[in-house]
């Protein structure tokens, strides 16, 4: 579903197409001069605004939805003889596609987002444009809006821009916070078990877990770095690359240690999706002990749970922080 388009709205694509009319010089005002009126892109009250990235990026960098007040886009648009202005004004220009086509695009985008989320892949705005929206880029706002609405009404999920800088979206549950629903299906997700094992180890240690420590634990499960496993495949690749890519773990070199050693930390996504209490419950189940067998960690988990409850009395998605870095 890859639809490339040379729509001049998007300087990055236009730059690739070496359109001579494009202002693709790096010195362009890409600063955070986004007018406040651009803020309400999504009709949902909780969604943050979408707009050009804050930092002035060099020309090949992907840009946010085209029809915004981005000065660069405006200049190109004027040159092209199309009048792109603030979204409120109706414009002459190429005829908008039939509503049915926009609706279909919204459905395609909905499915795209659902599948990306299912695979725990990052939902990246430029990918959305390239793979799904394609030549309908001019109407991407209304497509996005419709998609968000459908996702909220049918799936109870919020399509949320989690990072303006990296232009990442994520699907966030809008329903009440609950325990990882895996308890409904008792451990049908082996990957989660493996991940939770590592996250628990890091949590209990209270700091990063050295790779050697992690393998000691995994050995109990019969997993070795050099052996392929029937379910997990290449375990080392899974935990040092895939989980890291999905932002569930961080894998970093330990400073000042020779020969080089590496350690694991919680990734930003793990911090967002998994609570300390869930870790305590996991530990309790695995070791058949009371969670209070780890008293200081249990206290931490209690505090976190209390903080979460206080922050979200209406029980709408507890974690809406912008992802780090």
């Amino acid at each position, binding site marked *: *579903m890859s639809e490339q388009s040379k729509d001049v709205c998007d300087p990055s694509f236009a730059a690739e197409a070496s359109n001579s009319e494009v202002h693709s010089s790096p010195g362009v005002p890409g600063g955070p001069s986004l007018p406040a009126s651009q803020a309400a892109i999504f009709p949902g009250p909780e969604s943050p605004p979408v707009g050009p990235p804050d930092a002035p990026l060099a020309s090949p960098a992907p840009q946010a939805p085209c029809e915004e007040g981005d000065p660069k886009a405006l200049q190109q648009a004027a040159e092209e003889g199309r009048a792109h202005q603030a979204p409120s004004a109706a414009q002459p220009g190429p005829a908008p596609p039939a*509503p049915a086509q926009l*609706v279909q695009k919204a*459905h*395609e985008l*909905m*499915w*795209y987002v*659902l*599948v*990306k*989320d*299912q*695979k725990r*892949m990052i939902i990246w705005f430029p990918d959305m444009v390239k*793979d799904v929206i394609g030549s309908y880029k001019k109407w991407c706002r209304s497509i996005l809006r*419709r998609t968000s*609405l*459908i996702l909220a*009404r*049918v*799936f*109870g*999920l919020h399509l949320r821009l989690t990072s303006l800088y990296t232009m990442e979206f994520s699907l966030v*549950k809008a*329903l*009440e916070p*609950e325990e990882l*629903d895996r*308890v*409904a*299906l008792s451990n*049908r*997700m082996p990957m989660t078990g493996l991940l939770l094992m590592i996250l628990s180890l890091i949590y209990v240690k209270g700091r990063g877990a050295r790779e050697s420590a992690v393998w000691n634990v995994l050995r109990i499960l019969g997993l070795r770095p050099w052996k392929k496993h029937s*379910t997990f*495949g290449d375990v080392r690749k899974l935990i040092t690359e895939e989980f890291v890519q999905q932002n569930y773990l961080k894998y970093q070199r330990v400073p000042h240690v020779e020969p080089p050693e590496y350690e694991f930390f919680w990734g930003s996504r793990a911090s967002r999706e998994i609570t300390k209490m869930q870790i305590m419950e996991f530990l309790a189940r695995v070791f058949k002990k009371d969670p209070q067998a780890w008293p200081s960690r249990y206290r931490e988990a209690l505090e976190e749970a209390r903080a979460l409850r206080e922050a979200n009395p209406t029980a709408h998605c507890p974690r809406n922080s912008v992802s780090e870095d």
Partner: protein
Amino acid sequence: MQGSTRRMGIMTDVHRRFLQLLMTHGVLEEWDVQRLQKHCYKVHDRNATVEKLEDFINNINSVLESLYIEIKKGVTEDDGRPIYALVNLATTSISKMASDFAENELDLFRKALELIIDSETGFASSTNILNLVDQLKGKKMRKKEAEHVLQKFVQNKWLIEKEGEFTLHGRAILEMEQYIRETYPDAVKVCTICHSLLIQGQSCETCGIRMHLPCVAKYFQSNSEPRCPHCNDYWPHEIPEVFDPKKEREAGISKSNKRSLRSRQH
């Protein structure tokens, strides 16, 4: 402009959570789906009676219809287990996979798919698939890498491997049946009983009609003299047992038990 609001009234948080979780798990067996449904009721609507699964799903599907997606029920070809998945009815591409795999990986899958569909048994040997590695679109792939990719397909439940041969996972059939029928209209095989796409099954040696193993099981259940429904000749294959979820749970057989009755066709 909000065309899909017609039947939104019946979507409650019970249904939403159910959809979320079904999507998360990709494909689920019927028993898991029932537990999932009960879980969703427990979380959101403790006091309501749990609706019959079939009606529950039909209700949700009526809402999903305008979005061109559907909760589809299928049956595993080898041992007749009912499975459910949320599928996209648009057939523009191998939709669910497209965002997952690189171009050459997708092409490898397509090649394997073609071999499977063309084969007599519904299985394609690893060797035959790997021999096509040079013809793949996109970045060049070595055979070693291709083996890995095939394993990835197995882990993601697109393919099943048995003794070095590959066939389609029930999930792949569920999700791609429409795509397959439209792309390979001449090569596809169809079951005489249920008229769905057939990859693995048994065939009549006289007239050539084919039936899924679970369809054979149901059709010839407690029939001491099984005969071909088309030409009435004696049915020459072993008749498998009808899948009984209760019996299976009692026996404590795990999901990965390879108790399949794959019947070769010659």
